[in-house]
């Protein structure tokens, strides 16, 4: 680009004004100076408009994860982790990003027709799914929320922040990039803050909260509930999670960050349930969220047995078949909508 000196120095001045305006309220004296500067020349106005557009483009830019920069202020250890995560995953992330971009583009097309000349404001929402029901909620900024069964959600978009409260269940959030307006999910006393990413927040049966990131980065603040008279200190820790990382919060304490396969962990959003060495009782409970026909296990020993596998949530028969091949489990329909799983009948040894 032709960088003639006079333009460059005007661009620099325009940039300084923009940054000043972006940082907070200007005093009257500052505003007078700004107007005086604008009125000095059309070039000043043009450059200020250009810097504003540049800011807009940077807000829409989605490649921040691929930019290598030390962003934690601490040295080597964290930098290494971030760099490795970035180096390991860029190929998969970019492919997923194009798919996401295509999906979002389709969503935008639909929204654009509806919202054409309006300054679209997201109305407050309360959404609830029943057992076995999954729902996809599209918000006016292009973000989507894939809700699992038995999930309750409140959406409250404000000017400074896009607030979502997860009251129960699990949801996968695909957040549209808006650098000026963070997307914050609160679940009990934990908050998860994102700018433009894909991540899941899930209530587990024991009351734990699990946060898994598929793409991008989120900041998780886990807090124990306040007792009366207490207040939160500024020193509350914020844990940064990158793609394919997971955190569990129990009783306000967060676990160490686990490296996981984001796609498998969040497969439930596509109806795929993945279990790794989980009690049959827990697996059955998960299945029951997705199906009208409820599985039951009464035998304690059977309930405590552990299994691993990936299952289609809407296909409990396949799961039952798996259990019988692996553990000899028998299934008996006890009513219209309940199936009892029982341990194998003892082999009938005819004791002479």
């Amino acid at each position, binding site marked *: *680009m032709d960088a003639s000196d006079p333009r*460059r120095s005007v*661009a620099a001045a325009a*940039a*300084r004004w*923009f*940054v000043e*305006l*972006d*940082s*907070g*309220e*200007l*005093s*009257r*004296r500052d*505003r*007078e100076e700004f*107007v005086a500067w*604008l*009125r000095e*020349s*059309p070039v000043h*106005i*043009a*450059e*200020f*408009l*250009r*810097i*504003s*557009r*540049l*800011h*807009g*483009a*940077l807000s*829409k830019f*989605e*490649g*921040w*994860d*691929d*930019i*290598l*920069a*030390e*962003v*934690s*202020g601490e040295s080597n250890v964290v930098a290494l982790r971030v760099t490795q995560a970035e180096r390991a995953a860029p190929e998969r992330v970019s492919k997923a990003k*194009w798919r996401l*971009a295509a999906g979002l583009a389709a969503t935008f*097309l639909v929204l654009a027709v509806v919202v054409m*000349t309006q300054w679209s404001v997201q109305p407050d929402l309360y959404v609830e799914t029943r057992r076995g029901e999954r729902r996809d909620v599209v918000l006016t900024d292009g973000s989507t929320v894939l809700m699992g069964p038995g999930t309750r959600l409140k959406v409250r978009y404000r*000017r*400074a922040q896009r607030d979502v409260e997860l009251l129960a269940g699990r949801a996968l959030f695909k957040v549209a990039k808006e*650098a*000026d307006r963070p997307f914050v999910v609160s679940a009990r006393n934990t908050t998860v803050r994102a*700018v433009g990413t894909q991540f899941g927040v899930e209530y587990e049966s024991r009351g734990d909260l699990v946060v898994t990131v598929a793409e991008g980065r989120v*900041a998780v603040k886990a807090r124990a509930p306040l007792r009366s008279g207490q207040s939160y200190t500024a020193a509350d820790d914020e844990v940064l999670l990158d793609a394919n990382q997971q955190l569990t919060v129990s009783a306000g304490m967060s676990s160490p960050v686990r490296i996981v396969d984001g796609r498998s962990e969040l497969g439930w959003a596509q109806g795929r349930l993945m279990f790794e060495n989980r009690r049959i009782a827990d697996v059955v409970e998960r299945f029951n969220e997705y199906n009208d026909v409820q599985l039951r296990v009464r035998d304690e020993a059977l309930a405590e047995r552990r299994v691993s596998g990936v299952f289609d949530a809407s296909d409990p028969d396949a799961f039952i078949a798996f259990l019988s091949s692996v553990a000899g489990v028998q299934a008996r329909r006890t009513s219209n909508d309940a199936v009892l799983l029982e341990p194998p009948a003892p082999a009938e040894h005819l004791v002479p």
Partner: protein
Amino acid sequence: MTIENIVKEALKGAGGPTSSLDRSSSEESRAIMTPVETRTRVADWFSRWRAPLRRFLSSRGSIPTADIDDVAQEVFLRLMRYDRSEIVEHPQAYLFRMASNVASEWSIRSRLRHPHDSEWLGVLESEDRPDETHARRAAESEIREAIERLPARQRQIIKLRFGEGLDQAAIAARLGLTERMVKRDLANCYATLRMELDEELLGVLIHGRE
């Protein structure tokens, strides 16, 4: 409707500030503020800055890249006509609003001159244009390369600003810098990227098409 009235309407819609919020003298000391003052200050900042900026960047406020200098010339003339004290109340709102109005006035005029063009545009907007993704990819790639050429600290700061949505104070805290240093680096960053990046491509990212 005169521009003046349009801006007044726009400011009303944005929850514009009342005169009681003008704190020209108390601004001198950035003293500890009560929570109510903080909320009012933030709300004020939003209606004076963020909301007008956002409108300007939406497709409703868009200016064709090629026209920026001409639009600026016209805005310059219009600014001269206004009472300075009125503009000083809401300079950014006036500026962005005027620029968008000029651009839309001109585009209406050109549509009237060439009515068949607007039909053609209508068809294009409803189709999925294949080269849009390509243009977008090109824009993202050019931006990424320009960012990677920035000095390390500027790159850190801009990544925190846009990748994580932190404001200047939070960036300063995270990196152990003063806010003044963050402001300076951020401004240098904007200035450098402005000179290096092609505006047409930026337009693709902002509006999805040019």
